[in-house]
């Protein structure tokens, strides 16, 4: 094959920083974040949208980054795990996960945290059913999920406590 591969210019904001790149159009958002921007806290578990480990926030909405083309993120605002802690201070969701032992190997945890972030930013008092619906879209192989539910409940208290 001698033709030059197709390429696309895209620009987006990730965790508040602006990026501009030229990419292979088939590159998905997960690979773009990891390979082009070296933001590797977004992990990849299955590449077909089932495990939920690759979740990022796109304009405030949880999205499976393996099921979105980088091109589709052009012009959008992305938030990843790297953007949760600010100024060396852990996000309340991260604190909650530590306190409630909501992680063991930690590989899947980012996916949970981003989905929980969307939920709590939109609805600070989710019902048990709503929490389960969000947690239910993610796979964890280590914890058995009960400690993750405890972590979410703890995050709910922490985030409502910090509200005026």
């Amino acid at each position, binding site marked *: 094959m001698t033709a030059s591969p197709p390429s696309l210019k895209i620009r987006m904001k990730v965790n508040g920083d602006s990026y501009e790149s030229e990419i292979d159009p088939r590159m998905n958002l997960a690979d773009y974040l990891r390979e082009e921007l070296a933001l590797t806290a977004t992990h990849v578990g299955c590449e077909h949208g089932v495990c939920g480990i690759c979740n990022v926030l796109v304009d405030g909405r949880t999205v499976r980054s393996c099921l979105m083309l980088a091109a589709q993120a052009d012009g959008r605002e992305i938030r990843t795990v790297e953007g949760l802690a600010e100024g060396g201070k852990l996000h309340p969701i991260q604190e909650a996960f530590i*306190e409630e032992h909501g992680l063991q190997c930690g590989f899947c945890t980012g996916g949970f945290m981003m989905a929980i972030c969307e939920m709590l930013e939109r609805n600070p008092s989710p019902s048990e059913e709503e929490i389960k619906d969000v*947690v239910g879209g993610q796979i964890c192989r280590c914890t058995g999920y009960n400690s993750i539910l405890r972590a979410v409940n703890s995050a709910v208290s922490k985030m409502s406590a910090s509200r005026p």
Partner: protein
Amino acid sequence: MAIEIPKSLAELPTTEPRFVGRGMRRVEDAALLTGRVQFIDDLVLPRMLHAAILRSPLAHGRITNVDTSRAEALDGVVAVVTGEDARRWSYPAQSSPDGWGVHCIAGDKVHFVGEPVAAVAASNRRVAEDALELIEVEYDALEPVADPFEAMKSDSPRVLDAQESNVMMDRTFTWGDVDGAFSQAPHVFREKFRWNRLGANPTETFGCISQWDPMALDLTIHGSIQSPGMFGLGRSASFGLPSNKVNIISQPHGGSFGGKGGTRGCDISCLLSRKAAGRPVKWIEDRGEYLLSGGSQAWDRHYDVSLAVDANGIVTGLKVILVDDLGATGEGYGAISAAKPLAAFTGPYTIPVAQYDLKLVATNKLPCGPYRGMGPPPHFFVLEQMMDIAARTLGEDPAEFRRKNFIPADQFPYTIPSGNEYDSGNYDEVLNQVLALADYEALRADQVRARAEGRLVGIGVASAIEPGVFDWNAYAIVGMPGTGVPEGATVSIDVLGMATVRVGFSLEGQGQYTLVSQLVADYFGYEPEAVRVVQLDTQSAPPSFGPGGSRLGVAITGAVLGACVRIREKMSRVVAVLMQTEPENIELMDGKFLLKGAPGAEMTVAEVAGTMLARSDLLPPDIDPRPEATHVWTAPGRTPADEEGRAKSYLTAAHAVHIVQVEIDRDTGMVEIQRYCLADDCGTRLNPDTVEGQTEGSVVQGIGAALLEEYVYDADAQPLCTSFMDYLLPTVFDAPKIEMVAVVTPSPFTPLGAKGCGEGAMHTTPAAVMCAINDALAPLGTAAREVPASPNRIWKLLDDARGGAHSSSA
């Protein structure tokens, strides 16, 4: 010099342990949660290439031609390897039973769907996969064999040309007068069971970056690796390299559960690196590859089990016939998985004689690999159901039936017929605790009411032993050399008194670095955050196996405390010199070295370390001035296996009893778990949060095994479960609230009295869930004997019990 490692928490040099035996915030967590931990795919090396592997679409066939020329010409492709390169530069896998190993890339024959037939290294993974499509491979299809019973027949297609049959091993172990016990027993029960393939599926698949040095002729491999030492020895064997020419750096990794696999892919990345003149080659196994051809599948078993019971309901004999389909080559240590049940063959019971008729068979399916429990979980699945069959037939309550067959608390250490020794236990107490937790009587009363309403409610009581802290000795029966399994740690204290611990394994999720911090903190009076845990690569680390076989908590405790004891002895000698007394007058307590009987005469650990390092002029010349020591811990008292495989193999025996309540929807066959209670005893709990986490995680994996997870193959050995749409992992909706109570019967043989507990509930949960399902089905006169107990399977049983005239045929 023999050193005395503390055998209980009371023996630690503290007034009271502040950390060991308690939960705490894990030292690993902040870095994990902020993405600052480097998993293998996060690592980028200069001039790194990316590999992709072409895999056989056939289960069985001869390769007649491989043409890689178009792939080699693709822009961005740097190296291509085939079976020819594998034969030229590598050896067959050593992890198979003797004579069954094959090269990492198929040469003249493919043996299972997904077997590598070629591989490419290119500038990125997308291009590498493009290149795979340009490789032309021609096959002559051969008839595959998918069923192990067919495979055992003399006219079956032969999986491996080098072998005369498909039977890798056919051996019967007889422990005691089994024939006598069965012929004399007033009750003999016999049943067949089917355990279908399932496997680890950690959320992170295998990955590695391999670097061949063409000048030094050595290999450096970074990877997502559970047991770096063993992995390194495997690579040495693959490439015929001296053991000191392979260096493994294991990255923190996303779980393993035994089933990380990756040996073929790693060997292939090494070949590619060699072909690419030493450039590092990264291979990340994608999920499709993992499910199809990774370390993903285990326990493809057909059981035929008999139980002999006397007139008083005491079990007098156990016979297990197992046909274990190890797949094409058994290269995932499948033989060990079949042999491990010897370590706990008769479970928690006093069954005096037993027999194990074991056939390991090859078929044209993926070679089976390890999974959590490494063999016993299906064994207990069948044993516990046999106990229920006996109890139900004899009209006895399953909990009491088990109780009267339990090994009594005063008989430990107890040697079971298959040779292993259980260190300690109080099985009666564990049963009592869970019966109380579950309010068993109330559950049974509720069940009576529910049954009167026509509901299918079942209660299962199951008990199993978790062998912990393994040795290789018993596996001599499947051709493994009988070496020990050491774990080493180096503890050093610097000039300001800060501690660093060097270990040989990486993060996997079990909180071992936190445990290490807790141990050193309590030993020397630190806060755990003042202890730094550093992982070394295999060329620098003390001997290390890492996690596996429920060993690391105990083993690393032994290693770390052993090193601490050695440092304490050195420091005591230093303090003695400085205080002008004898070392036996010096005591360490709560971080201070004290002169006995002289209050106020003391030095802190930091002061002693500072003196040793900065003022060695004050020390006599025969004292090693480094406040540092390495200790390697190996399980004591292991014995070689005799001709019937009997050996003291696993040092500890943890015990659990689970009580599960399920309800089955008559119309759909769906099983709902309504209540989950368990009591478990793993000796001293070094970190209760960790134990609880392992328990909860393994219960849910066990539920996955019982209800959801299965790798299905068709009659032509074509795999049908190739994505997460087909292979179903449990989600939060499948996880019940788990009620737990702990019993503590310390081990007399281990550091701090702890027992191995990492494989956990995998031993008991599938059995408990199945026993509950069968308790629900019992009034209908039917039983489920195959896992997973999918809705389709359960519905079929219900329908057949109704006479097979299911309403859909009206």
